[in-house]
């Protein structure tokens, strides 16, 4: 039994198990066990992957599994992982696990909630382990559609509007993706050979450059909409704000990384020439994303909106780094995906916990909470410091790798956009400290808050697991960095063999 298949089977079994349960207590227990098993599986996968590599296995993708699905169109159910996928799977494992514990008190329709959540997780896992374009797209849709149900039913505020906007915009992205993927498919083999959806095989040939020029924007923007590319990011603030806690955690933490991962695995990998030619347009857009998101976050008054704009800013940095297309910057992009996934999951978990106590998300109505709920306050400060890139936490490692990598380009354009993106460290500090100052420090605004209770055991599990992960990457980054570097080598090699007379 291929270990990768387990990543699909375990969640499906969990869903079946939940369907047999009766109430909140049982369903959350089953979910916790299921996702706990999945988390352990993820770590086992990391361990197995590292031992395979140290045993000398130098294939690009490990643990491959292939089953023919639709013979007429040559669609396979093809699985395989490399260092980057393994890292993303580990991230998903941790975030989903923390998300289950953050939803421990979901009173309304708990079974359906957990089922939808786990279906979403299945889609995400599937996306990371597949290497066949069609299968990837299938899992991508599987991950996006439950968002509508989750936000529309269990959300707060203008939930129907947010759910509709989010789903429709992401669907528009999927539509563009469909164009891109089909386009790639039809040019996936030289004339005469059978067409294929398999990424590894498509990467061996070069798609004609005229088609690349057309398909690359479609694919990039299709994934970019999910990765919060300016100006298609507006589903994010409302979506995150209206979603329930665990859904925000999963969405900002993992789903938005599908966009970055997709750009990396499909757009850049399969169409490198067009990527090099057109990178400058998207570099401008992504560097605007980074600064724009940060500036918008400064004036927000709702905790979730602040975090949503922060996510726009950080995810923009991921796309920015991928577009730099050299080893260091792409390494930084992947570390940033993992780091931001953990940090934003932590933030949303904390916001959910605070909201559950104070029943307001407006920072002006709260104040001085550090004295009343010290554990949550301290963890919030830690999350904030990690988010603004303090050394010792993963954000610093990611951002510095990105900036050094981006600065490797010697031309003026790349260096100027790098400096623009780097200025985000100041703006991020401004809005993070603003929130921390208003929310946690200062005198206590509302005397009712004096009776708030601090974190319960399940909340502590949720937050501490994320803090530990962030600190582990921050203090011992070489593990992650080397693992990713190894898997980046073939991709970088492919990028360097092409000569393009681009604009810059």
């Amino acid at each position, binding site marked *: 039994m291929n270990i990768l298949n387990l990543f699909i089977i375990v969640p499906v079994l969990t869903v079946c198990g939940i369907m047999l349960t009766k109430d909140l207590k049982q369903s959350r227990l089953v979910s916790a066990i299921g996702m706990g098993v999945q988390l352990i599986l993820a770590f086992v996968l990391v361990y197995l992957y590292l031992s395979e590599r140290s045993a000398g296995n130098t294939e690009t993708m490990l643990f491959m599994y292939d089953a023919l699905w639709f013979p007429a169109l040559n669609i396979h159910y093809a699985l395989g992982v490399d260092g980057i996928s393994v890292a993303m799977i580990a991230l998903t494992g941790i975030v989903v696990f923390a998300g289950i514990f953050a939803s421990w008190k979901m009173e309304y329709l708990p079974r359906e909630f957990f089922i939808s959540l786990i279906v979403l997780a299945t889609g995400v896992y599937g996306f990371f382990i597949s290497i066949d374009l069609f299968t990837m797209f299938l899992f991508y849709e599987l991950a996006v559609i439950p968002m509508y149900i989750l936000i529309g039913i269990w959300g707060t505020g203008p939930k129907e509007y947010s759910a509709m906007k989010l789903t429709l915009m992401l669907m528009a992205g999927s539509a563009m993706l469909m164009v891109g993927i089909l386009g790639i498919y039809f040019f996936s083999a030289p004339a005469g050979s059978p067409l294929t959806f398999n990424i590894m095989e498509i990467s061996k040939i070069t798609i004609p450059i005229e088609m690349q020029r057309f398909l690359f924007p479609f694919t990039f923007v299709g994934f970019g909409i999910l990765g919060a590319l300016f100006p298609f990011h507006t589903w994010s603030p409302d979506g995150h704000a209206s979603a329930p806690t665990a859904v925000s955690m999963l969405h900002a933490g993992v789903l938005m990384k599908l966009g970055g991962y997709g750009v990396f695995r499909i757009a850049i990998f399969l169409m490198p020439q067009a990527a090099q030619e057109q990178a400058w347009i998207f570099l401008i857009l992504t560097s605007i994303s980074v600064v724009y998101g940060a500036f918008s976050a*400064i004036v927000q008054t709702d905790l979730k909106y602040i975090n949503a704009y922060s996510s726009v800013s950080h995810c923009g940095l991921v796309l920015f780094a991928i577009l730099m297309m050299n080893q260091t910057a792409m390494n930084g992009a992947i570390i940033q995906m993992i780091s931001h996934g953990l940090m934003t999951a932590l933030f949303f978990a904390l916001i959910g916990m605070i909201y559950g106590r104070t029943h307001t998300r407006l920072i002006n109505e709260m104040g001085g909470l550090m004295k009343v709920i010290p554990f949550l306050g301290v963890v919030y400060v830690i999350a904030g410091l990690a988010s603004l890139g303090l050394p010792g936490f993963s954000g610093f490692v990611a951002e510095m790798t990105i900036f050094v*990598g981006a600065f490797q380009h010697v031309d003026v354009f790349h260096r100027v956009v790098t400096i623009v993106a780097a200025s985000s460290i*100041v703006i991020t*500090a*401004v809005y993070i400290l*603003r929130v921390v100052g208003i929310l946690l*420090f200062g*005198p206590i605004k509302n005397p009712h808050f004096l009776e708030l209770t601090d974190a319960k055991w399940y909340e502590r599990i949720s937050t501490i697991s994320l803090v530990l992960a962030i600190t582990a990457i921050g203090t011992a980054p070489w593990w992650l*960095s080397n693992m990713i570097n190894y898997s980046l080598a073939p991709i970088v090699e492919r990028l360097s063999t092409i000569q393009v007379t681009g604009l810059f």
Partner: protein
Amino acid sequence: MADYTYTLLIPLIPLFVFLLLGLTGHKMKPLVSGLIGSTGLGISAILSYATAFKYFIGSHVAGTGYASIKGFEVSWLHLTDKLTIHLGVLIDPISVMMLVVITTVSLMVHIYSIGYMKGDPGFYRFFSFLSLFSFSMLGLVLATNIFQMYIFWELVGVSSFLLIGYYYEKPSAVAASKKAFIVTRFADLGFLIGILMLSFNTGTFDFQTLTDPNGPAIASAGGAAFMGMSVLTWSLIFIFIGGAGKSAMFPFHIWLPDAMEGPTPVSALIHAATMVVAGVYLVARLFPVYALGAPDALMVVAWVGGFSSIFAAVIACTQTDIKRVLAFSTMSQIGYMMLSLGVSGYGGEEGLGFMASNFHLFTHAMFKALLFLGAGAVIHAVHTNEIGGMGNLRKHLPITHITFLIACITIAGIPPFSAFFSKDEILVAAFHNNKLLFAIEYIVAGLTAFYMFRLYYGIFWGKNTKYDHTPHESPLVMTIPLMILAFGSVFAGFIPFHSLVTSDGLPFESKIDWLIAIPSVLIGVLGIVVATVMYKKENPLPDKVAGTFKHLYKWAYHKFYWDEIYLFVTRKIIYRYISEPIAWFDRHVIDATMNGVAGIVQYTSYAIKGFQSGRLQQYAFVFVSGTVVLVLIFVYLV
């Protein structure tokens, strides 16, 4: 080559104490946490002294200079094939000197705080943050490469943030800590850009490689030029911007006076003796590159230092809050240190400025920490920071009085106290390099003596007897550090820095240049005399002087309105004219476009749905006409 791996313990012990106190401190009795913190620092201090002894005396071969040694290094993060971030320990004259300074002052502050912070509910938190700061600062000075220094630079910034905002329920403290962090972060952006430019031009982060006089870094100075200065010069200027932010040089100085919101021991440790000299240390660390590769950048350093010096000195003459006076005094003295580095050359006698800068850093740490801790003792006794609420305290606080007076005499540059030696060397170096800078610093020396004695007389003399309860002398745990620091202030001048800490590691002859020394002492004495005349007894002279220089006085009192400018830029410009429009744009233009798309779809749908009218005859009509059209097409067109 002697083994210095044990020096790893020097920063790691405070880190361990931070974690220990942070996680379990709330379960301990306060005194225990204070003792744990102090013991940890004590061990680090002993190890630092041992290292200093071993490096400067023990393993030193007479006649040769002091080389820099890498005690320990491990690869932390591999970035590109040439650039890797390492973590390690670098032992050389300035880092060993800083080890002694940091651990000594930190230990004094720890002991003092056991008394000062007694009764405060967050006692263990205070000590854990103090240890965090000590760890960060020690890591900064021991850094082997510029990125490691940047890492600890940020950590020092966070420690400062946490300590300034220690009284987090006070809105002013929260605002001050935010301001400090954001202003220094802005400077850190410059630092980062400088690091990127420097490392890509020279191909390394490592200090030993960068500062090698015959190495590749300095040779690349002749490389690509941009707007008249080489890339190397530009990168060093950016790096200096980072240093200027941490060292509160103009125009990044605005955070320092507000940082006085933190408890006084914090001000003593961070904002007088250690963190604020980080910028000076940075320039000193990269000094060979500055001096040999980018003399233009050194000019910038010198002038920024000189200007900050006189700017701060003028403001200090008008302030009424003890800690603010001392804060501006710090800024002024750091200006001295920067200027000294700026006018220095490299190698032997040329490097007098370098030596003097580090010498002054050392002595300044002693007497400035002493001044702050003494001020803390005064504030502790009378419960106010304002000079107006004090007076006549020499009877009530004898030990504080004597030590404070010693510090004031030191800072005025009166021999044989330590600052005379260090300041004199700076003035000599300035005189030989740039007469205008020398003149500025000469005037500042006089002003320094003046405002310090103004402060002294305001606190300890005068006839004020209107105290709610009699002020009492501080307990021994607070006065012993004062006495130790006073001892250091007096005798530190006799340390032969010219043979220990020099720009190229080799000793050189140094003698007192009486041509400069005598006038500098005289202007110090003049400042003391003027202050005595104006402030020793109550008289209308100060008000008359203030009245004569009405505008200058008003401007200086309001710190030349730089805080207002900062508030204007952040509130009005960034908040109102950049962020709010962006947020508005996002919600009302981009979002409106998306909503507009949805609206168009809805409108079209409404328009089309008329086809499904439910009326049978309409359906039939459409059916028939469609058929007719098709028939016509097939008959005539196909």
